[in-house]
């Protein structure tokens, strides 16, 4: 009896396997494998992708959709070793110039110029520049973002508070203290604590910048234990520990988004794309209750980061023309219309095409945050958000290859401090050691 069942099971498995053909599923024909980060806008694009397949017969799409940290690890490993698993990768303005310089990416400028109606001049200039290397675009933006602050107008009104248009961090800390309501399950503010240089370091670095801190001085001396850096780290950690969300040390963009949308936070400082989910009636309970103001500052006149998730084609990709047709589909003006009409105008990928901001329906749907988003992206230039010059590019990251590792390690220390496992000083002392090792290697090569 048992034996027959076992045989049956094996037979069933083999039949199932039959669908697998030679074992490598979908390996034949023109299948584009696309590695993307599983943020809401990307998931919308995945859902719409059968329209691309319908318009491009013979090209099949296969998505590898992973959370940010995992996606980054996989995409970097694959691109750096010329692994060739992916035909299209989603990367950011951190990777693009470096990888273009390494010769790992296909130069997209000929494709951009050769596609009528693609209109590259429609991209927000700061975003387009951040994806260019020696005057050519090596990646095309899917969405662009800076950071700003969302706050619950209803809660502010109830507490008799007024949010200024350009708040300082001290004001934000005071608001957070007043609005923190443990009994009602509402935290004063939501800030990322999850490790990952693209997670907690992004908001934290903007705080550090406006506190006058930097990672390295002009001679590549690590500055993570400078008084400014300590002040910034103490401020951030204390704020999130005292008035931040539950489970802060493991909360990233997605987790914060869920909490804010469930009405569990009075304020949220994060990426400008958050507005899309905050105002989405299908997932948010706080639609229409939020106001959006510029990133809080301390010593600078502006703050905020500059970031774009964009699409690129690895040099080793086999079918580059098909890959480009997908890039074109996902980043052109028609895609914006498609998303707007199917998923609602709040779901449109923001911050990358200027023409999006001239669409009446979008202006109507996004009136609370469209202008603050554009303003933030515009203001996010190194000279505006920093007190002193630094030897590296990037606002919320250090534009060197070692930063993936260094940033991840420092972000872990920061996260541990937020969890209360170690003190802020301990976290910074350890981080300083990591940073100095990296800094030394740049001093030597100079």
């Amino acid at each position, binding site marked *: 009896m*048992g*034996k027959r*069942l*076992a045989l049956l*099971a*094996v037979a069933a*498995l*083999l039949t*199932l*396997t039959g*669908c*697998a053909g030679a*074992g*490598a*599923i*979908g*390996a034949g024909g023109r*299948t584009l*494998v*696309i*590695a993307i980060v*599983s943020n*809401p806008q990307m998931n919308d694009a995945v859902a719409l992708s059968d329209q691309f397949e319908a318009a491009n017969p013979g090209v099949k799409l*296969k*998505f*590898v*959709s*992973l*959370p940010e940290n*995992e996606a980054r690890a*996989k995409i970097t*490993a*694959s691109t750096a*070793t*010329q*692994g*060739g*698993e*992916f035909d299209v990768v989603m990367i950011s303005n951190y990777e693009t110039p470096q990888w273009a310089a390494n010769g790992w990416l296909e130069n997209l400028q000929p494709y951009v110029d050769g596609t009528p109606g693609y209109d590259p001049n429609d991209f927000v200039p700061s975003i387009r520049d951040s994806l260019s290397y020696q005057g050519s675009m090596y990646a095309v933006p899917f969405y662009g973002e800076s950071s700003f602050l969302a706050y619950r107008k209803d809660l502010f009104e109830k507490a008799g508070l007024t949010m200024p248009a350009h708040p300082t961090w001290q004001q934000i800390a005071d608001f957070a203290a007043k609005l923190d309501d443990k009994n009602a399950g509402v935290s004063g503010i939501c800030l990322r604590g999850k490790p990952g240089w693209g997670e907690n370091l992004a908001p934290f670095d903007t705080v550090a910048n406006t506190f006058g801190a930097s990672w390295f001085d002009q001679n590549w001396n690590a500055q993570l234990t400078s008084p400014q850096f300590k002040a910034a780290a103490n401020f951030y950690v204390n704020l999130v520990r005292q008035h931040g969300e539950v489970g802060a040390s493991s909360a*990233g963009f*997605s*987790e914060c*988004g*869920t909490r804010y949308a469930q009405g569990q936070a009075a304020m949220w400082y994060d990426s400008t794309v958050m507005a899309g989910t905050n105002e989405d009636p299908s*997932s948010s309970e706080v639609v229409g209750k939020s106001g959006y103001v510029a990133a809080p500052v301390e010593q600078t006149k502006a703050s905020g980061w500059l970031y774009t998730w964009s699409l690129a084609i690895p040099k080793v990709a086999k079918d580059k023309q098909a890959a480009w047709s997908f890039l074109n589909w996902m980043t052109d003006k028609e895609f914006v219309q498609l998303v707007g009409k199917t998923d609602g105008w709040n779901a449109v990928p923001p911050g990358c095409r200027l023409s999006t901001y001239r669409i009446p329906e979008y202006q109507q749907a996004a009136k609370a945050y469209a202008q603050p988003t554009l303003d933030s992206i515009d203001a996010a230039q190194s000279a505006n958000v920093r007190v002193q010059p630094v030897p590296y590019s990037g606002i919320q990251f250090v534009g060197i290859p070692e930063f993936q590792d260094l940033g991840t390690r420092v972000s872990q220390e920061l996260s541990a401090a937020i969890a209360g496992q170690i003190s802020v000083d301990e976290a910074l002392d350890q981080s300083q050691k990591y940073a100095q090792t990296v800094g030394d290697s740049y001093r030597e090569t100079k």
Partner: protein
Amino acid sequence: MTTHTQRRFGRASLTVVTWVIAILFVFPLLWMILTSFKQEADAYTDPPKLAFGPTLSQFASILDRGFLPYLANSAFVTVVSTLIVLLVGVPAAYALSLAPVPKTSNVLGFFLSTKMLPIVAAIIPLYVISQKTQLLDNVWALIILYTAMNLPLAIWMMRSFFLEVPTEMIEAGRVDGAKLPLLLSRVILPVVAPGIAATALICVIFSWTEFFYAVNLTAARAGTVPVFLVGFITSEGLYWAQLSAAALLASLPVMIVGWIAQNHLVRGLSMGAVK
């Protein structure tokens, strides 16, 4: 109360205690099954909901997210690697038991020591070698590695089952003039067949659940079910119901095989050797 009724009462209460412990122990699983039939909004509530309108929509959306290719990959990798393990493992086990080669214990020691190698130690070379040999994101890379991963344990298990074959039977066969193939198929295999089945079952379980190689060496084409689950690593949008449905679907094949063959499982794990 008489001692008799006391004892009966004691036994009954022990049974109740056993049941309670068992249910508490698998509660996370029962909860998973329950959650997989919920709508997302019912999945994360405080307090947790027990009554809700059940739905199959989570399973449907898992299939929509392209679950089936992962399932097919898992099935293919598991079945093929287990078959290869048996194909090369059975002769090896025979050569280490009934017709022992010189230095049997050294060979056995070598096999077992590879099992104790931390698999993470060689992951970069494996990645580079796979890339050079076009095996990156290819099911055959996993098949080769899973075969190597399961082979030592399998040989060791099957060897202990071979040792159970009574020497007299073999000798009797020899006396009758039976040639080796006949001896194998008529005398030895019937005795060790259940042991081989048990071994195969354990190889199936370990291949199906393997995570590390799968996550690092596959992407879209050759991903197995554990890789599919990585997409749920963030609690983004709190897809708990969908996660539960995915977890259930991903585990179900091995769960069913394991349930049906639990006696084999016990036998395989205790390796026959411990008699």
